[in-house]
């Protein structure tokens, strides 16, 4: 049984411009203790996907509830009873968002908010919960934890606030941590520190980690495996090294071509032309075809399937054949020689 297993997940939102197919058929698995990266541009559906895992989709007339299946340790989260979902959320499954200032309550001290999370999810008395709060603050590398526990969110720097958010996420001893663009708003130096922290707590606690970012190089520093999302669908997946060294999908190659580096050899940037269209406006055929520089005739008409690819090594090879774990890509270029009707 996988820690997280998502099958044919669809989230459609009703908007003024029509129905937005934000998540449009996603399959993947995340195993116990595994770090998986989810990469895509704004509008690729990555945040909606994350929110649906936690049952945090905005509740309003416009939202159509997710269809498909999200299983956490075999337990179905789609349509789950609210009370049970509340137990899991913040407990076994925790989340760290991009802007901690909006997720922290400005009128309570950081320590009291972490302690509240500890008391909610663990059977500890007040004194023990207080001690646990200080331990968590130390765990995430906040110096002078006692004094910092008494600080209000606005008295902390952006990096310290993000550390406090991670401490709060760890309060329920989660087995899965979902981190959505959690370093994007930070200085590169602090970003590097937070990524190092995420990796170290993930390894030390044997936690599953789903790290979501628009930045392939951020994700590749932390994750074992990467999923590339476009148009609400996975277009390529595989072990980090294979994605970086032998990308199969033109979109992945585009993301790699836009990656900034301090090495001179990548001096000419080859960005992907155009931008992600509105989710109400996906083109027919392959959703990437209007921006694709290797487009074929049939790309305009038919959407390709996510197909398993050869070339995987070791553990991944053993699991290949199971959807959502191995080396896969969704592109007509990869099947062109075999089938041409």
């Amino acid at each position: 049984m996988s820690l997280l297993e998502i099958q044919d997940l669809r989230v459609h939102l009703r908007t003024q411009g029509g129905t937005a197919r934000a998540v449009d058929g996603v399959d993947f698995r995340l195993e116990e203790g595994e770090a998986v990266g989810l990469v895509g541009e704004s509008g690729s559906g990555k945040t909606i996907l994350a929110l649906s895992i936690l049952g945090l989709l905005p509740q309003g007339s416009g939202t159509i509830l997710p269809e498909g299946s999200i299983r956490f340790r075999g337990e179905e989260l789609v349509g789950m009873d609210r009370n049970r979902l509340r137990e899991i959320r913040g407990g076994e499954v925790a989340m760290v968002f991009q802007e901690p200032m909006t997720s922290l309550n400005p009128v309570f001290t950081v320590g009291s908010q972490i302690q509240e999370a500890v008391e909610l999810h663990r059977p500890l008395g007040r004194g023990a919960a207080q001690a646990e709060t200080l331990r968590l603050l130390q765990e995430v590398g906040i110096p002078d934890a006692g004094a910092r526990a008494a600080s209000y969110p606005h008295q902390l720097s952006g990096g310290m606030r993000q550390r406090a958010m991670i401490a709060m996420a760890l309060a329920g001893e989660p087995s899965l941590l979902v981190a959505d663009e959690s370093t994007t708003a930070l200085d590169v130096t602090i970003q590097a520190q937070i990524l190092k922290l995420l990796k170290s707590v993930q390894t030390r606690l044997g936690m599953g980690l789903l790290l979501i970012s628009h930045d392939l190089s951020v994700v590749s520093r932390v994750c074992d495996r990467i999923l590339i999302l476009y148009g609400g669908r996975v277009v390529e997946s595989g072990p980090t090294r294979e994605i970086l060294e032998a990308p199969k999908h033109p979109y992945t190659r585009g993301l790699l071509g836009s990656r900034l580096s301090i090495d001179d050899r990548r001096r000419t940037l080859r960005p992907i032309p155009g931008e992600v269209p509105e989710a109400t406006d996906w083109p027919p055929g392959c959703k990437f075809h209007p921006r694709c520089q290797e487009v074929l005739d049939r790309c305009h008409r038919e959407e390709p399937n996510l197909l398993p690819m050869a070339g995987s090594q070791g553990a991944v090879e053993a699991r290949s054949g199971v959807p959502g774990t191995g080396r896969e890509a969704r592109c007509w270029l990869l099947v062109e020689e075999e089938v041409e009707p």
Partner: protein
Amino acid sequence: MTNGSEEFILSVIGLTHSFAQKGGGRGEGKGPVHALRGVSFDLKKGECLAVVGESGSGKTTLARSLLRLVQPTGGEVSYRGTDVLTMNPDDLLAFRRKAQIVFQDPFGSLNPRLRAGPMLDEILQVHGDSVSRGTRQLRVAELLQLVGLHPSHAERYPHEFSGGQRQRLGIARALSVGPELLILDEPVSALDLSVQAQILNLLRDLQERLALTIILVAHDLTVVRQVADRVAVMYGGKVVEVSPVQGLFETPVHPYTKGLLAAADPDAASVRGEGPWDLLTGEPPSPIRPPAGCPFHPRCPHPAKDQECAEKPPEVRGLPRGRKVACWKEIEGADRA
């Protein structure tokens, strides 16, 4: 991308800026914020100088001071021999036609009820030489195309543009008055990577086509690698290293520069090759109570001389190949401070 001539258009000498805090800070005590603590550099015509540093390093205050959007408390900004900081209002207006700024989020500075076309048209009416309506219309279309937008985008309201397109519009607006100096403050940090690369390519293209002089402010060194001719690294309100771009990336001198490079791109060959360079621990210093001595010494992985680093701020020293550094360590070829 420098044109070979050594004409300086801007000289900044000992610029300082301190201001009173608004409201409570992060519990660092009361007292003025020392945003700039003696910044000096020259800007050659046609070059792109990147100013890089973390939050709180003073880079945004510097960008605004150069146009006198804030009035610095000391020092001099000399534009073609005239001090910007003491210019009369008429001269200042003329100067600001020659020097324009683009902010991180142009959305915050675009009127939500004004379409792109009329917005540019208004600027041309006020500042430009294109008097007739027809000429202005042509000029608007030309400006939009110059930044990679379509003339039909003139009909759109700001909210109808994507983030990348809004940044292009912000650049078009800055270019509408025909400046020779363009200052960009974190122009790509709010954008997707693929769009960042598009905007950086656009900047490089514009610099060549319009012979612009550019100051590019960023916190991420990888962003400036492809665009800048020279880089100034700021820390604690001071410039700690200035160097032509290749030297800075390949053989950085200041330990802070090395830390920034390691944080920005830990997989880069240069970062992995020598060392590897240490990842920076800790956070930037408080601008309210900056540390004595070298501003970087509390975070420095290899302080050169304990006593000096902690007590005396290092002087800026000249190095071969147009480089400068402020650090106490022994450096071959450095002139004596």
